[in-house]
């Protein structure tokens, strides 16, 4: 039990860092540009598909990722310049409609280019094995890689936002747009850059998960809602909130799915636990969201008032 528990905890952590990569971009774009991007999940999907193709082209998953990143950055940049940029002045309803349109386009284009079937991405041997991290605890190497690279990226983001000039601009842009303009910074370039950064983060999440789940059409449409739950719980616009909430939600969701049924069985006859277990565990994170909202409508770590 405890071995399984530890392994599931690591699985939860892995889901958590993926959610963070998605939520980070969402919360950046919302916090700074006040833009609601439903199509963020499409960038996650595109990351997976582009990486799949490049993996086959270069013959290596690692090179696939390396080359896919700039491509996703360019896609994100174009997305901002062509569409998103013209919507900052509109209301949230328009954001939602336009980005909903983008999802439909992205899903169809992916189907046209890669066909309706999912694509599995082969891993090199040194990544597809397993390691014994603690005595008797064996965990897939690749999942460990996901966790560590996710945490590395999180640390990098923290550094970027706290210590660099770009981070200073991002923080300033969030609190005062006119001030940034007054500093002589081209705000539209800054926004496009931030958007591309968010796109890359989402794309990387897609690339990292694809070897496990395959790249599939609409793969972003489910996880994006979970990412929404993450930033709602964490407080929209807060990077710290996004990180803590992502890890929390990832772990709770994973543990809930694996152990809730067993826990219910202790208290209940197994027959009703058989139905209630899966039902409850699938609703768990939303229930947590509801509780957090009931107690703190602004989320756990609301950003400072703009």
């Amino acid at each position, binding site marked *: 039990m405890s071995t399984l528990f530890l392994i599931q905890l690591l699985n939860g952590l892995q889901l958590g860092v993926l959610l963070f990569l998605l939520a980070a971009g969402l919360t950046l774009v*919302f916090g700074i540009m006040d833009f*609601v991007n*439903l199509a963020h999940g499409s960038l996650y999907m595109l990351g997976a598909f582009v990486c799949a193709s490049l993996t086959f082209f270069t013959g290596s998953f690692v090179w696939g990722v390396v080359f896919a990143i700039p491509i996703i950055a360019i896609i994100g940049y174009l997305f901002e310049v062509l*569409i998103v940029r*013209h*919507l900052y002045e*509109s209301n*949230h*309803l*328009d954001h*939602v*409609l*336009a980005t*909903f*349109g*983008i*999802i*439909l*386009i992205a*899903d*169809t*284009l992916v*189907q*046209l280019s890669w066909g309706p079937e999912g694509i599995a991405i082969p891993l090199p041997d040194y990544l597809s094995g397993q390691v014994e991290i603690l005595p008797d605890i064996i965990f897939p190497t690749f999942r460990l890689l996901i966790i560590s690279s996710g945490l590395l990226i999180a640390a990098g983001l923290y550094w970027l936002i706290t210590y660099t000039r770009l981070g200073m601009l991002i923080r300033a842009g969030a609190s005062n747009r006119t001030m940034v303009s007054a500093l002589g910074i081209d705000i539209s370039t800054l926004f496009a850059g931030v958007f591309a950064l968010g796109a890359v983060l989402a794309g990387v999440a897609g690339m990292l998960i694809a070897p496990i789940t395959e790249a599939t059409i609409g793969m972003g*449409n*489910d996880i994006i*809602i979970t990412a*929404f*739950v993450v*930033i*709602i719980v964490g407080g*929209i616009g807060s990077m710290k909130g996004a990180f803590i909430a992502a890890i929390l939600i990832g772990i709770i969701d994973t543990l809930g799915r694996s152990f809730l049924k067993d826990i219910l069985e202790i208290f209940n006859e197994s027959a009703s636990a058989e*139905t209630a277990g*899966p*039902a409850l*565990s*699938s*609703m768990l994170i*939303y*229930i947590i*969201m*509801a509780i957090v*909202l*009931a107690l703190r*409508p602004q989320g756990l770590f609301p950003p400072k008032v703009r």
Partner: protein
Amino acid sequence: MSAQKKAANLDEYLKAPSLFGFGIGRIMTIVLMVLLFILPLIAWYMGNKFYLDFSSRIVCLAIAAVSLNLILGFGGMVSFGHAAFVGIGAYAVGIPSHHGYESAWLHFPLAMIAAAFFALVTGAISLRTKGVYFIMITMAFAQMAYYFFLSLEEYGGDDGMTLWSRSDFGFLNITDKLTFFLLSYALLALCIYLVFRIVNSRFGMVVRGCNSNEARMKSLGYNTYAYRLTAYVISGAMCGLAGALMANLQDFITADTMTWTRSGELMFMVILGGAGSVFGPIFGTGVFLLFEEILSAYTIYWHLPFGVLLILSVLFIKGGVNGLIQRAWKT
């Protein structure tokens, strides 16, 4: 100014609003309602069952759109989770049927009560928030409902469940396609009339006021939260009714009706018809479904032109499609 002149003045400000509106909008709405009634009947008379069913689908989804319009168009609450109410309404037919209870007098009230209850609980939480939060939270709650029904293995899980016989109204046999259409049409007309009464009543003025300027409503002394929540619950119940009808129309119930892309489509139908106009959702639903039907006959990739159209309309039409349509109704 004398008191008499004031009294004389007042009369012209005491007019009741007209259901069908004024001017060209009036003619348009009447033509729309008549066409929606006559065309399916002609199709049925010519023996074309497909178009009768297709019209029934427009009518059922239009009820859902009308319910969404009440809170989105008039109340300004951008709910991105309305498909959940459709699904709950559908399962309120499917689950009792599965256990042998087939009376429509159970199914339909249950559908409305269950959806209203879900609206009450989720609305109580989500209406404490505003703007983007509200959009995302309604989305998340709908997703919760989706996963919940997906996990119910006994009721089909992700395979869905077949409705072996339609709800039993006693004197009405809705297995007959024509009867079903007429019933749905009557219910749609009823819902439209209800929404018309509601939005012009005291309650409706308050909900519209909240849309226009909620802070001002509070300082005038309105408990805006209570009024908006009430509107949300009414909308949910009405949408549950649409779900019960949909289940009967399709003889099949699946959690897929609750995915958020469905909510998005529903929202688009409302916008397309001009959010905040009483008859708009019918127009929007009709155009959307026709568009889907025609495009999907040519290409399985019909989402592509649809998506492009969606973006272009938001980018290039001032005030979005909504603004365009609203201007059209008013001229």
